[in-house]
């Protein structure tokens, strides 16, 4: 009896402490639950982080001290947007010197596996939070209302052996604008207030994208609490890739 109760006591204490800490740091957002939004049909179970080769293999490796490649999404990878051409965030890890430049692939597909938009590009292997949007004036077919889409980011280690890719995935659904986010309601609100409203309405993709934009220019507590709410604490202090690569600090040198 006493053998069993001791671990339970510990667990209770730990959870009590973390509950207190959590409520101190982020009173309204201890855990992201995405409101009433749920994925639609049979969407399977994408993985935010793979269990296996998340850190690559020899010749294509994430630096020891860097976080892994990860989609900036809630733990079940599902989130909603109000936009037909939304923005996606993901963390690109620092790669070891030998790996650079890294070839990255971003793809969004509908649930019938039709590619909607696919991008490939080289990076210099510096770590940071990347953001990519479906471009609006390029003829790209936007997301349709109430449809689920799957997106993924891969670091392509060997073009002829895509099984060696380092991969992360997310799910997205475009939903109708709820009354509490109608343009008339948002008019005159600051961007921070807008981001908070989006967040409390459970509009994951638009909230996190807007907060990332704000956080480019200024520290933002809401950014911290939002990432904590989806257990991505190790990304809180990561730089946002801003296109000025020389000034983006490489947080981790080659190890």
């Amino acid at each position, binding site marked *: 009896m006493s053998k069993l109760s001791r671990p339970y006591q510990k667990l209770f204490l730990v959870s009590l402490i973390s509950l207190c800490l959590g409520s101190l740091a982020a009173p309204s957002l201890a855990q992201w639950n995405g409101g009433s939004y749920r994925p639609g049909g049979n969407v399977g179970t994408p993985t935010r982080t793979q269990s296996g080769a998340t850190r690559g293999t020899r010749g294509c490796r994430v630096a020891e001290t860097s976080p892994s490649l990860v989609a900036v999404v809630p733990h079940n990878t599902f989130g909603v947007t109000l936009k037909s051409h939304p923005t996606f965030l993901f963390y690109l890890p620092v790669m070891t010197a030998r790996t650079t430049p890294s070839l990255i692939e971003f793809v969004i597909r509908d649930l019938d596996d039709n590619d909607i938009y696919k991008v490939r590009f080289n990076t210099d292997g510096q770590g940071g939070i990347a953001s990519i949007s479906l471009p609006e004036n390029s003829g790209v077919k936007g997301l349709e209302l109430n449809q689920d889409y799957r997106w993924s980011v891969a670091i392509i280690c060997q073009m002829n052996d895509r099984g060696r890719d380092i991969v992360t995935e997310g799910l997205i659904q475009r939903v109708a604008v709820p009354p509490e986010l109608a343009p008339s309601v948002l008019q005159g609100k600051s961007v921070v207030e807008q981001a908070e409203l989006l967040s409390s309405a459970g509009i994951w993709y*638009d909230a996190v994208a807007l907060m990332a934009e704000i956080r480019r220019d200024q520290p933002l507590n809401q950014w911290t609490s939002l990432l904590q709410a989806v257990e991505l604490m190790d990304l809180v202090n990561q730089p946002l890739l801003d296109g000025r690569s020389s000034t983006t600090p490489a947080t981790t040198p080659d190890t």
Partner: protein
Amino acid sequence: MTTPKKQQPSGYNHYSHNHHVLLGLFHLRRSHLVIIPMISIVLILSMFSIASGQNNANRSRRIPDQWEQSDFRPPRNIGSPRSTQSGGRRNPSSNCINPALPPPTALVPPSGFGITQEPYPQISWYMPPNLAAAVEFILFDEDDDEIYSVQYALNPGNLPPDRSSVPQPQFTSAQGEPSPAPVESVPVEKGQVMSLQIPRHVGIQPLAVGSIYRWEVSLICDINNRTRDLYTTGYVQRLLSNPDLKAQIQQASPPEQVFIYANARLWYETLASVISLQPDRQTSQTSQTNGVASPLLTPLNLETGSGMEDENIDAIWVALLNSVGLEQIAQQTLSLRVSSASR
């Protein structure tokens, strides 16, 4: 990365200073001592400028008649210039566009070569109505290595409403059966201008100053037979940005910016700034973001509504495309030229 020289290429500082004349007028107006003669001068001058301003050609005249000298040679031998006629392969069975309309066409000067000061420029092309499966865009560096590529399904907005459910046209099979996509079924309304900006926030290196990049757009008529692609190509060279020009741009109205860029022969900036004058684009963006449009999320040059009449924008558009010999494309893209995301 190359270390850029802190020097501008020669023949670079030919900006228009016409707006200084206008600024001067405002100063004169404030004078109290000579108010009556000044008012009359101002009146006369403004009548003069209204008279010429009513003529749209006044604005258009400030787009150079000819973008580049006829004997202009790009900095290096850049393969085939913009191939407007064939749009790449001239394949008669590539009937995913109406053959009466121009094929996909790079919006670049006749040499195929355009200048930018942007580290992540916006690139534009003309796209006829089509029944294609997808579009591919590729940016190549000087070694002809792909550094950025995009492939995407086209917005069904490219098709008339009754065809918008058609997922993908059927084409001649490998056995050579006749194509079930007859030419008459290809929509015949006007084409669109499509644009892509090289993304800034994903870790792509900015274009290296001085290097010449090639870009290519392919209309994938048959995803299983890429020899049926229709493609077009253009070149872009980034020059070191000029602080004087930046200062001028910051003080200029959106239409003025077009002329400043044009007189500096910054092709990609000129094109992007004309496209951003389009009011449709403005509205589509606002409805797009459902009211959460924030200044932080909108590129600066799109923020201010130009407040211009459509005809004036059309006049600038035509003048710009005429200056690079794309008269036919100009006519095809009047008033509905920007691919809108409003659906």
